[in-house]
């Protein structure tokens, strides 16, 4: 999750709306100018509209799967089945990690689901990472029922809320880079899953989420800058090839098994991809 733990939904969505005025870089930032630019950007492209609609479908689909997977995970926790819960933990989280930028836009919901220890006050700490600590540190789920129940209801609330999201093209562009930033900021240094060390699952899911956005924007991007599109495609391929060597069965190796030069390589491949990916804003420009 992002470090700004009390992200206000209105703030982020409001900013997204304001930021759709991206084509007005040269103008001074008067409220009127931004309003006009928002309207202009909204009407800009049927292609972008189609991309945002498809993306919303993807978000809803992933959230559906997230609720299902969370339910199975929570059931295992409540049944006291530590082994089963540990098995389900990382794969369940991948649905969330794929749509993280959207999931993060609902105020306290993101910290409630995804806060790490220390991100919020101890009394408020709950969600996946609280259960992660129980499963890997205490190695017991005794007394965790409350957190399990809350996690399921939080995920259901997320499902209800994604229905209301208005996806703008700008959110797609910043969201794709945002997903890779999540990797850079917490997964690459092994800080996301500090007890289970399942960071590579989140890592892969963030990358998949970013690639989905790229695929949706690709037709528009190719109209504006075909070489940028093929550059991004190559960089995704490089990264995925490197990541593939750490696959183990249906999942991934634990992060602590990777040597420093291996994590460094992954990190640098992320940076190599994120840089051209951040140029996708060109589809929004005039």
């Amino acid at each position, binding site marked *: 999750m992002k470090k700004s733990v009390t992200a206000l939904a209105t703030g982020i969505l409001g900013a997204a709306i304001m930021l759709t005025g991206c084509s007005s870089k040269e103008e001074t930032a008067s409220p009127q100018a931004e309003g006009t630019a928002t309207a202009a950007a909204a009407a800009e492209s049927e292609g972008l509209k189609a991309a945002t609609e498809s993306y919303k479908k993807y978000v809803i689909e992933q959230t559906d799967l997230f609720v299902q997977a969370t339910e199975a995970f929570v059931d295992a926790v409540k049944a006291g089945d530590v082994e089963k819960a540990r098995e389900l933990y990382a794969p369940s989280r991948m649905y969330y990690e794929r749509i993280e930028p959207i999931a993060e836009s609902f105020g306290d919901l993101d910290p409630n689901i995804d806060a790490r220890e220390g991100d919020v006050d101890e009394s408020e700490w709950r969600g996946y990472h609280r259960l992660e600590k129980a499963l890997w540190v205490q190695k017991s789920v005794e007394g965790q029922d409350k957190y399990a129940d809350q996690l399921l209801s939080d995920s259901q609330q997320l499902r209800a809320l994604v229905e209301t999201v208005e996806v703008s093209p700008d959110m797609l562009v910043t969201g794709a880079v945002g997903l890779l930033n999540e990797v850079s900021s917490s997964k690459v240094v092994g800080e996301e899953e500090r007890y289970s060390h399942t960071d590579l699952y989140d890592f892969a899911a963030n990358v998949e989420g970013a690639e989905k956005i790229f695929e949706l924007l690709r037709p528009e991007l190719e109209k504006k800058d075909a070489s940028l599109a093929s550059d991004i495609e190559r960089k995704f391929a490089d990264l995925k090839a490197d990541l593939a060597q750490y696959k183990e069965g249906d999942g991934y190796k634990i992060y602590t098994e990777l040597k420093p030069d291996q994590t*460094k390589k992954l990190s640098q491949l992320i940076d190599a991809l994120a840089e051209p990916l951040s140029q996708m804003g060109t589809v929004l420009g005039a």
Partner: protein
Amino acid sequence: MGNGNRKDGDPKRQGTLLSRREVLKMGAAGGLGLLLGSMVGGSVIAGKGLAASLTKGFDSRPTGDNQESVPFYGKVQAGIVTPAQNFLIFASFDLVTERIEDVRKLFQDWTDAAARLTEGKPVGEESDNAFLPPKDTGEAAGLLPARTTVTFGVGPSVFDGRFGLKSKRPPTFADLPPFPGESLQPEWCGGDIGVQVCSNDMQVAFHAIRNLIRIARGKAVLKWMQEGFQRSGAADPKAGTPRNLLGFKDGTGNPDVNDPDLMNRYVWVQKADGPSWMENGTYMVVRKIRMRIEVWDRSSLQDQEATFGRHRASGAPLGRQDEFDSLEEALEQKNADGTYVIPVQSHVRLSHGDGSVKILRRSYSYSSGIEPRSGQLDAGLFFICFQRDIASQFVPLQDRLARQDKLNEYIVHIGSAVFACFPGVSRGGYIGEGLWS
């Protein structure tokens, strides 16, 4: 970064001492002109310039001239409201002695050394005995004072009972509470003593801290040390507000160091505040803040500006034209849809709060190679601020920022320390006399 320090009108602070020049005269009269002639950014190029610099008022530029020295002795310590020099070396020490008389001797020796160092003199007169190691380590021989300052403070840990000082601890002076999202590394935290060396020359700064470390041997050991930089006076002759490594002007909202009322209100400990040994001192907060440079670099300009709440190019509040346009007014301005032009989670809005609490920032950038696990730059802001009371100034401000600041996506606090910086000292006295005696 801390630079509201635009002017320093105190006539007592005019440059006067050129002791290394005297050294030079003895050995290399010819070399002197060359040395001065090669100085970058100094207004002094020839003899005429030198005379002029001795008679003109204090240079209002943040960096000033290298031949100037900043007086060590005074009512308050130098290096606090002094315009920020080009470079910083900050050292945190732990005391290894448990005898207060050793600490007293250390501060007496440090006071003497610091006074000489800031005048551009070696830390001690050399003896004729070639069988002894030199008193001064020598790497600053022949170099100008370069406006070096040395500022001393003590951490809360000196009041833990080792030295019988428990009763002298200022009531609200304590380690900072934990803040959400921070990722503090013990090797960058705390310390019994903090020493801030600032200078317009890195070699002069290194020489100063090295000799202070040497003097402390057997009494205090280094706990951590960080170098810092900002744009130099030479590179910024107009002396604009410096930019941090995220490319934004940093320090625009600092209180004016030339306004004694403001400084007494926000920075200097007043008699009524107590304890008496801290009157005219100030409390310093140090935070080592790593920047996620690679992540920031791929954020759109709009995202960057929405994060700070200012325009990158001009430094103006969002929706305004000029860096110094009223922030209060800009904070009220709304878009057509009712949202604020300066977002609610922007750094400038949260830092400003209701405007009633201010701190004096005096930060430097740092760059320490690469982070080995990620191959990314290990760089950021070595944040330093001064205030009259940490608990009521820095703590509520940082608590607000830690919880809500959009900038937290791009930074992480990895080091932290607080120091009670002593009042100034007059000739014959020594730093911290009121505490140690």
